[in-house]
């Protein structure tokens, strides 16, 4: 997870890079192009920072079905499923921070930025199957943490 300062450095860096390589832009979505640059910069920075770079950021792909679904915790303080609930949002934030960087990146590209899977594959320079797997596992991990805090995903 990058701090605010790092994030701003990355964006600055990416904007400069985008400006310089403006001529090379040929895709259909300018927004996806910008995100591609920013995402790659951020991931590069994370990779460079890790102590043992031989370890992949994303754990080796297992069978997605093998990823467990945590069962709801015993009756406790229930997190409202309202998006405005600060407590729930804080939990989500922490859960995202604990994710492998690649999972977090695709999840944010999907749920916050609303990119389609194909666009995300282009942005992160990966196969669409990898995108699908990462989104599923990332979202499931966040769900598991929420559920373990007593959250009931009853929202329609």
């Amino acid at each position, binding site marked *: 997870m990058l701090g*605010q300062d790092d*994030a*701003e450095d990355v*964006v*600055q*860096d990416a*904007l*400069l890079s985008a*400006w310089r390589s403006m001529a090379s832009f040929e895709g259909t979505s300018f927004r996806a192009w910008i995100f591609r640059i920013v995402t790659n910069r951020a991931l590069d920075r994370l990779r460079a920072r890790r102590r043992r770079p031989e370890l992949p950021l994303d754990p080796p792909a297992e*069978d*997605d*079905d093998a990823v467990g*679904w945590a069962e709801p915790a015993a009756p406790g303080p229930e997190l409202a*499923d309202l*998006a*405005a609930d600060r407590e*729930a*949002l804080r939990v*989500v*934030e922490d859960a*995202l921070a604990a994710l492998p960087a690649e999972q977090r990146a695709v*999840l*944010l590209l*999907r*749920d*916050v930025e609303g990119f*389609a*899977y194909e666009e995300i594959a282009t942005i992160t320079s990966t196969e669409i199957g990898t995108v*699908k797997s990462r*989104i*599923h596992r990332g*979202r*499931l991990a*966040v*769900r598991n943490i*929420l*559920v373990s805090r007593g*959250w009931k*995903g*009853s*929202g*329609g």
Partner: protein
Amino acid sequence: MHPFGDLSAYLDGALSPEARTSVQAHLDTCALCRTRLAELRGTARLIAALPMPVPSRSLVPRVSVPVWMTALRTFSTVASAAAIFLFVVSAVTSSLPRLTSTAGAPAAAPAASAPNAALDQTKGRGAATPTPQSSDERGKLLVPSGASASPGAAFSAASTSPGLTENAPSASDAVRRLDVGSPSPDTSAFSVAERTSIAREQAPFNPFPWLWLVLGVAFAALSFILGRRLRSA
């Protein structure tokens, strides 16, 4: 078998038509998968609702540029503006005496009767661009010192020689030189009227305004070039 692995993609509408139909059919019969799907939808909504961090500083990349470059550019801009302004001022002021000089030597006396004005004029021009009128002025100022010549007079006489007219000191300089006073033979050769008419003939046009214009254009060009360097750096 529950299609757990496809639920997120189903939620995102990223499944192929066949897979989608298949998951749809399963959801119709499986309450557990419907719950899972609802949880994933709720999770996605919470993620989407995360507050956006606000940048604490400008995200426009800051390019480090040598300080001298910006300073020089600012200086150039100001200098070009000043030089072009001086061009206009000296062009206007130097054209005024030429208008009065059409009246010839007799007109020199009335003009010289207002020495302060002439002094102001030469001062205002800063670099002391002499004009026929200021020559007149110097001539008149020399007269009270009598026939005996002075360095100022000598300079006045010298200034009548071709090409040197522009370098004549300001009227106030001439006055200061008068105070020092040491004889010099040649000046008495010319009367004031003669001197002024010679000066007028040999300096039909004052090159100083054009010098200012050229300087102004040069500074403007320098400023422009530096500006482009700053932008491309």
